[in-house]
């Protein structure tokens, strides 16, 4: 599923909320499952979901907004067409993740927590993907990759080879 890059239409939004509430509202502690369901469908959690979800769960809007903002996973803006999450934690650092981070920033033209202006890609940090014996690791659109180096990352992202700079 490719998340839409624009604000969903009010019909899409209302539908997503209704489907999430139907599937999850009966669960004890339903808020996280509901927000996950909405984000699965829309790619992010627009602020417009707050009032109807709060009403359905008999919570205050502040409680729902507070939960959305607390968790790193819930996006308050639409992601790019491709989402890259690079592990920044210790085991990946020990295998050169910091250099990969610099490489990604340069080749993708975007910093962490940002979506490129053309909407092509979002770059996010993640702290451990549980792939610590095959470090460094990342996910691209949710798919896990290990034993990364710059060349493998470029292939995975289908980044066109850049011109070789003459050495100074």
């Amino acid at each position, binding site marked *: 599923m490719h998340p839409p890059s624009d604000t969903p239409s009010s019909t899409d939004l209302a539908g997503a909320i209704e489907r999430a509430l139907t599937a999850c509202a009966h669960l*004890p*502690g*339903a*808020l*996280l*499952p509901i*927000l*996950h369901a909405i984000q699965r469908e829309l790619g992010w959690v627009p602020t417009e979901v707050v009032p109807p979800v709060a009403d359905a*769960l008999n919570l205050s809007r502040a*409680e729902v907004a*507070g*939960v959305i903002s*607390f*968790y*790193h*996973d*819930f996006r308050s803006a639409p992601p790019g067409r491709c989402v890259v999450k690079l*592990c920044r*934690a*210790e*085991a*990946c*650092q*020990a*295998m050169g993740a910091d250099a990969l981070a610099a490489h990604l920033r340069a080749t993708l033209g975007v910093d962490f927590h940002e979506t490129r202006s053309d909407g092509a890609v979002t770059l996010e940090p*993640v*702290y*451990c*993907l*549980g*792939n*610590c*014996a*095959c*470090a460094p*690791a990342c996910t691209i659109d*949710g798919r*896990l*990759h*290990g*034993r990364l180096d710059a060349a493998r990352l470029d292939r995975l992202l289908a980044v066109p080879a850049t011109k070789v700079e003459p050495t100074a």
Partner: protein
Amino acid sequence: MSATVYVPRDASARSVGADDVAEALAAHAAARGVELRIVRNGSRGMLWLEPLIEVATDAGRIAYGPVGVDDVPSLFAAGFLAGGDHPLRHGATESIPYFAKQQRLTFARVGLIDPVSLADYEAHGGLRGLRAALALEPAQIVEAILASGLRGRGGAAFPTGIKWKTVLDTAADQKYVVCNADEGDSGTFSDRMVMEGDPLVLVEGMIIAGLATGATQGYIYLRSEYPDAAVALDQAIAAARAAGVLGPDVLGSGRRFELEVRIGAGSYVCGEETALLESLEGKRGIVRYRPPVPAVAGLFGKPTALNNVVTLASVPIILDRGAAYYRDFGAGRSRGTLAFQLAGNIARGGLVELAFGVTLRELLYEYGGGSASGRPIRAVQVGGPLGAFVPASDFDLPLDYEAFVAKGAIVGHGGIVVFDDTVDMAKMARYALEFCAIESCGKCTPCRIGSTRGVEVIDRLLAGDRPRLQLAVLRDLCDTMEHASLCALGGMTPYPVRSALEHFPADFGITAAAHGGH
């Protein structure tokens, strides 16, 4: 001819191409008219060899790895389906020294079986612990766990039997079993490997916990970074439910136990047990004051047995083989085995289950084969982001909860992250504080403010700005965070910071001159 090949479905194996290999094997077999059965097993834990494929032969399972798609034609040409010779051949899987020397209790089936086949599970000893537990009174199950010496494998090492006894002894109309599967520590993946490689053992352990404590509902709080584990758990739970292992009448006993997986949302602090409970209740993952402990008032205010994945997965074998069998492994007050995880800059990274008491040196060099880079190992971080950095001079320390605590370190969840001599320990100390600042739930001031101030102080120290003063402030901050934080996030972030300072002062630019003036 027909043959059986095992290709792991483990997330690490898939991250380095296992799916493509499985596809290529199937295509080549079809082209050659070979009837090939591909079993997607868990990983054997020799992760540096992934994708490690195994062929079932009369001489047992023969291992080849790491296999890439390009190796598939030559494997067929070499007759690998009959165990033929090939540069990637390692012989019988269970004779590979890394594997053969392990003491696989909790991980006995991981990599061996089809993880979501209840028949395969039972054929390899599954459900025997549950059947034994169904013949016991709850107090007798608790007694067996107490006698086994099992302590919480999530890191805190609290005796599991005491926790369960508290839940059992607390009267309530509803009790819960909650599995903490929010394995957020870098360098750890043993929970993931159980859930992907033998999820039914976790299901069985949770049912036994329910029988022991009187809980009828279980939740597995699984981190969102583990989607493969979610799939395997859902398949395992469905299989268990279909066979009457889970549900209103557990194996025809008249006892009830239901189980559901809940997915976290990327918060590290939700691995802390009370923040986890808040999150399960649908709230921000904010740490609770204790007491009351969760065993008395946990999920939705009800008595809750809250245990880590590996703890619960260790329960079935204790009920099956007896408390004494499990207790006879180990050292000192650390009984049984721990699944150590070798990660980071290590030549042979993977999972090594051994009795407590093994030394770091044995793990790093005999099993791990030294660093991946070939450079000297300078430090290892044991027990995740909140664990101390251990210098090479302490590599003979036995891995035993108390021996590590005596050194100001922790064994934790058994994750070992290896750094070679290019590591900048000041940067690692700064990272520890930065990570704490990112993940702090914000409830207590020492953690919320102290972590950010700590990053600033280290930056000033590294800039050479009045180093003696910065050091004093940093040490003071560490004391405040350790003693005044509500939970281990703020309370133990000082461990990596202090150990880096103590063992690697030069990395901070600390010299005699710096100590002398500011």
